[in-house]
């Protein structure tokens, strides 16, 4: 089975984010970038399927030079090939533009299954998986916590999280599946894997190489634009309620009722 996994390099979830002086982006200096946590579940699932039924796992990433780190990590985990979409023309794009570039890349890579994280933890837009499915004309199942591929390799059953319940969706393959936490427990890259990944050549593609006009992708091809960014702040009362537990609890309940008026 040929599996393609889309990966993104994002700031670590423990990173403190500050806004750049132009108010349109974040300060990247001093931030540790990691594989988007939801993409790790996608990579792990692809590797498990490959280990069971054979095939290849190709990781595709879009982003600047540092995006190579995420692809390198995916290779070290056991993925076979890596494709880096790296071009000034692809920079600054929104999620729909990113999906367009990824769709163009995937048209040149055989795929029986496409796995993505359910969202990237930087822009939190959760659009690329479904938009990619649409552009490739494939069915999608999003926010998946369990995936069973049929022996035939022609269909799958995916358990997806709804609001307060779950459902099992059957889908023909190829399909785009987006991974939610709980799908599996991602492995750590092995030492031999890391060594091998270092030597592995990555394929690098530009917008032109993807057959895309600069106007279709990147900032120029994006239907949305970030106008401003700010760090939210909310004044808090910061009232410490003192006393022995029963007294403190009683005072707190009173404050929540009469002062905050929330209960």
């Amino acid at each position: 089975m040929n599996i393609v996994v889309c990966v993104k390099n994002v700031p670590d979830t423990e990173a403190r984010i500050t806004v750049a002086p132009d108010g349109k982006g974040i300060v990247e200096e001093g931030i540790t970038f990691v594989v988007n946590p939801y993409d790790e579940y996608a990579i792990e699932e692809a590797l498990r399927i490959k280990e069971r039924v054979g095939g290849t796992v190709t990781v595709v990433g879009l982003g600047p030079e540092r995006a190579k780190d995420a692809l390198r990590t995916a290779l070290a985990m056991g993925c076979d090939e890596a494709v880096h979409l790296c071009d000034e023309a692809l920079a600054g794009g929104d999620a729909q533009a990113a999906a367009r570039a990824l769709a163009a890349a995937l048209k040149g890579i055989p795929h029986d299954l496409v796995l993505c994280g359910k969202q990237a933890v930087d822009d939190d837009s959760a659009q690329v998986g479904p938009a990619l499915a649409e552009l490739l004309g494939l069915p999608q199942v999003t926010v998946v916590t369990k995936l069973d591929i049929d022996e035939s390799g022609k269909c799958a059953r995916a358990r997806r999280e709804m609001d307060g319940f779950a459902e099992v969706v059957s889908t023909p393959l190829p399909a785009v599946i987006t991974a939610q936490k709980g799908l599996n427990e991602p492995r750590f890259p092995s030492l031999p894997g890391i060594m091998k990944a270092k030597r592995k050549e990555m394929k690098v593609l530009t917008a032109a190489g993807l057959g895309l006009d600069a106007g279709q992708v990147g900032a120029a091809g994006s239907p949305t634009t970030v106008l401003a960014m700010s760090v939210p702040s909310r004044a808090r009362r910061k009232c410490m309620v003192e006393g022995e537990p029963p007294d403190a609890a009683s005072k707190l309940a009173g404050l929540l009722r009469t002062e905050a008026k929330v209960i």
Partner: protein
Amino acid sequence: MAQGVLIYAEAREGRLRRVTLELAGKGAELAAKRGEPLAAALLGSGVEPLAKVLGEHGVDVVYLADDPALKDYTTDAYARVMTDITRAAGPALLFLGATAIGRDLAPRLAARLGCGLASDCVALDLGADGLRATRPVFAGKVVTEVGFKGSPCVATVRPNVLPPAARQEGRAAEVRRVTVTLDAADRRTAVAEVIKAAGEVVDLAEADIIVSGGRGMKGPENFGIIAGLAKALGGAVGASRAAVDAGWIEHSHQVGQTGKTVSPTLYIACGISGSVQHLAGMSSSKCIVAVNKDPEAAIFKVADYGIVGDLFQVVPALTAEVKRLREG
């Protein structure tokens, strides 16, 4: 020329979800500013009675796609019908709830229509150059303002943030029936099974009150204390990543950057130190209470009310007090 506002009306078990009424409120406001009508797309099987409810909540035109083939939400069929309705209505603005369904449907719809989408918005307004959407990124560590090129401008809106539309007795919408025609390509996936959680449904995104437990809970058996307070308050149970990763509670309860971002009226954090990723997911709550034995815990910096103490004593006492107040 694109005109008017279209909202996706989400029905669940014969009722409109609250977020739909929240969209109706904002939709009516922005439609009035533009001097244009508010329309709603109502899809499902046996959902016709809900058209009346939409009319009472400010909707002018309901596009009703009531068909047995739409009984379950499936991406392909709903995307097809929503595309047809959107093309027929030709709206300038299209809003969906940022629910499991809205988040599955909207990005696909935007890709099909070739237009822009701002996900999980917390505020929407009209500027001189069209829709301005406010959305948290990095799970709320940063807030962005998004502008659009082209139309329709599509936004999914986080539940529980905007006020719902007021009911206007006797107000009615014009109902336009939509004929549902689905090809094989619109019927690829199917819902094979629905799995309801045992016990109470956790719907953190829509919960007004959330009581969360963290590492300080010490084990899965102690989450009963959290559930007890949540029940007394009529709220939902949340958890920190530490508690989920320890296997004490399911991931569907997790609040934070790799869990859910929530903004309830009241958030009570018990035994949660307040890591950056957790704070990102709950710091937009209207009122935050922290109970922790460590006075230096970061959670106190974002709290409105804090108690430094043993949660195993404080939380049950609070539960008893809430019960007393509620009964009294």
